Each structure stands twice: as C-alpha cells, then as structure tokens.
C-alpha cells in the first residue's frame, strides 16, 4: 500500500520529465523558388516524399522544446542534429542552439554546407534530433530523410591501408631429404664394408701371436672392455643417456681393476723377457 502510494506521488514527476517538440517545421527556400516547400514535421511519421535540396537551396528547421505536461518551454542541456548516411555509415553531428524559452532554429545552406554535414552520395541522409537534459528523459526524434547533392567521396584515412586482415601466412618448409636409390646405397654399403676384408686379410697375413690373450689375468680385462662396447651399442639401441652414464660408471670399477691386473702382468712379463 505504501509502495502504491509512493508510485502515485511519483507519477506526476515522471510525467513532467517528458519533453516534446512544439510546432516543429521545416522550410526549403530556393533561389529560383522552384522547389520551395514548407511543412510541419510529424514526430511519428517521416515527411513523404523525402526532402530534397538543390546545390543552392536552404533548409530551415524551427521548433520549440517544451515539457509535455505543462507546456512550458525548456532549454535542454544538449541538442544535436545527426545526419547519418545508412549506406556509407558516414555521420555528422551538428549542435543546435536553443534559447531559454526552448526555441531553436537551424539553417542548412547548401551553398555553404557546414562542416558537420558528412560526405554525401545519392543516398538520403537520415536526420535525427537528439535532446539531452539531466532533468528530463532524453528525446530522440527521427525528423525526415534528406537528399542533398553528392559531395566528393570521403577522403581515405591515412591508416586505412594498415587496418585490413593480412593474407594468411603460408609457411614453406624445406622438402624432406630422401635416401638415395637402393642400388646406390647397396653399392656404397659394400664399398664401406670392403675395408674390413682388407683389414682381416692383412691381419691374417701378419697373424700376430697373442699367446696370453686367454690367460686368466687378461680375460677379465677383455671381457669388461667387450661389456663396455656392448653397453655403448645398447645405448644406441634403446638406453637413455643417464642410464648409460650410470651403468658405465658401475662397469668402470671392475674394468679399472681388471685392466690394472692385466697390464701389470704383461708389464712384468715384458721386464722378465729383457
């Protein structure tokens, strides 16, 4: 009940805050008076046919801003005319001067078009009146569509060229390297293995005597060395670096002792032979 009462009290306030236009009019005057036109502007329906201005015509708009409730003239804080070309998305904003009684007058002389008029083409400009006041609800009125003579095309923004999507970057990679034909590979494999034949042939010819190779003092050294080579081969096949270093460190201990034993025994034999 309290709430309803508050709303009833507030209602006139809300109502008083609505603005409207009184006797809005446009007048087109022409130097040759051929296209002269003067009509009131309807707030609900755009003028038909759309307004059309020649290169020397003048458009005059007059209206008074009033409170809808009391009918008193109001000077709003902000009043703008917006010219908007829906096709090219160009727009111009023209501030209007409204006197303390709420009366405003705007003249658009096409012989001297204002800077706020956007670049135009043959498409119509949508003319909107925008009124702002911190005491009232904002008001936005679509006044009419306006044909004006086409201007120069809008100048291109200096940064326009930079603001486009760049072409998709195409990465080019070096083609995969290929193995040579099998015959060439096979021939060179045989060639690379050929020195082994030479080596084995020469060794067979020299046939060095290794009388102590399998003596108990030498065999452990040879075995540990073989184990080292096997470990490295295993590294190639599957082991990781850390594993190899670990196993190698472990294998190094017996290798050192076996090697010392083997080499000392050989050294002693060499000294005995002297």
């Amino acid at each position, binding site marked *: 009940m309290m709430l309803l009462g508050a709303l009833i009290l507030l209602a006139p306030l809300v109502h008083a805050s609505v603005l409207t236009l009184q006797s809005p009019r446009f007048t087109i005057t022409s130097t040759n008076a051929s296209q002269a036109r003067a009509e009131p502007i309807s707030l609900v329906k755009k003028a038909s046919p759309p307004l059309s201005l020649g290169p020397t015509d003048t458009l005059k708009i007059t209206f008074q801003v009033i409170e809808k409730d009391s009918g008193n003239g109001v000077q709003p804080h902000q009043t703008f005319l917006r010219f908007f070309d829906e096709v090219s998305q160009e727009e111009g904003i023209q501030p209007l001067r409204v006197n303390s009684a709420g009366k405003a007058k705007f003249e658009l002389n096409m012989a001297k078009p204002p800077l706020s008029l956007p670049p135009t083409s043959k498409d119509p400009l949508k003319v909107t009146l925008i009124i702002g006041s911190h005491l009232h609800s904002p008001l936005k009125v679509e006044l009419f569509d306006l044909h004006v003579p086409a201007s120069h095309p809008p100048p291109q923004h200096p940064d326009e060229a930079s603001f486009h999507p760049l072409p998709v970057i195409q990465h080019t990679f070096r083609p995969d390297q290929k193995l040579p034909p099998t015959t060439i590979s096979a021939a060179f494999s045989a060639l690379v293995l050929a*020195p082994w034949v*030479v080596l084995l042939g020469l060794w067979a010819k020299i046939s060095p005597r290794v009388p102590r190779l399998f003596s108990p003092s030498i065999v452990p050294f040879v075995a540990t*060395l073989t184990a080292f080579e096997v470990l490295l081969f295993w*590294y*190639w096949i599957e082991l990781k670096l850390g594993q190899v270093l670990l196993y190698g460190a472990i294998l190094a201990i017996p290798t050192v002792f076996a090697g010392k034993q083997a*080499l000392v025994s050989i050294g002693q034999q060499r000294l005995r032979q002297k």
Partner: protein
Amino acid sequence: MAKSTSSSPAQTTVVQTLWKAYNDQTPDRLKFVDAFLFFLMLSGVVQFAYCVLVTNFPFNAFLAGFSSTVGQFVLTASLRSQVNPENKDEFKEVSPERAFADYVLGSIVLHFFVFNFLG
C-alpha cells in the same frame, strides 16, 4: 703411411726399397697396428666419398661414422708411436702398458660420443 705406393715409374725403385725395408724391419705387432690404421683410412675415405658424391642425408650417421674413423686413427697412431721400440727414448715415462691403457680409455670415450651421434 709407409705402405702407400706411387705409380710414378721414376720412383718405383725408391718405393720398392722402402716397402722392403718396412717389411723386414717392422715388428709384427706394429704391422698389426698399421693394418688397422690402413683399414681406418680406407673406411674414412669411402665414407667421405659417399658424403660428397651421393648424399649426407643422415648427417648424424655420417658424422658418427667419419669421426669414429678419424678419432680412432688418431688414437691408434699415438698408441703406435708410444709403443714403437724405436721411440723408447722419447717416451721414457710412458710404458707400453700405460700407453695401451690410455688408448683404451680414449677409445671408450670416443665410442661413447660416436654412438651418441648415431642417434
């Protein structure tokens, strides 16, 4: 290397004399090492020729193979010079056993890097 032969006819006798002297005066053990050096040289030359003439495509494999021959050659050559009885005066501190131990250690390290490169 002493074994390499020249095809120039003027030097044939010189080379023959050299070859004969090598065969007669070199201990079998050094010949054994020399055969290995010769093998390493041939192997390295063939691998390098393949790399230059055909492709170096598995480049890591080429690096591993070629560096193993070169590295082993260097290690073996130094072993040979240290165990050569004629160089005894130059390597008084280094016994043949010590030289062989160095050779083994160097070879294991070399083979570790070679298998590392082999991928």
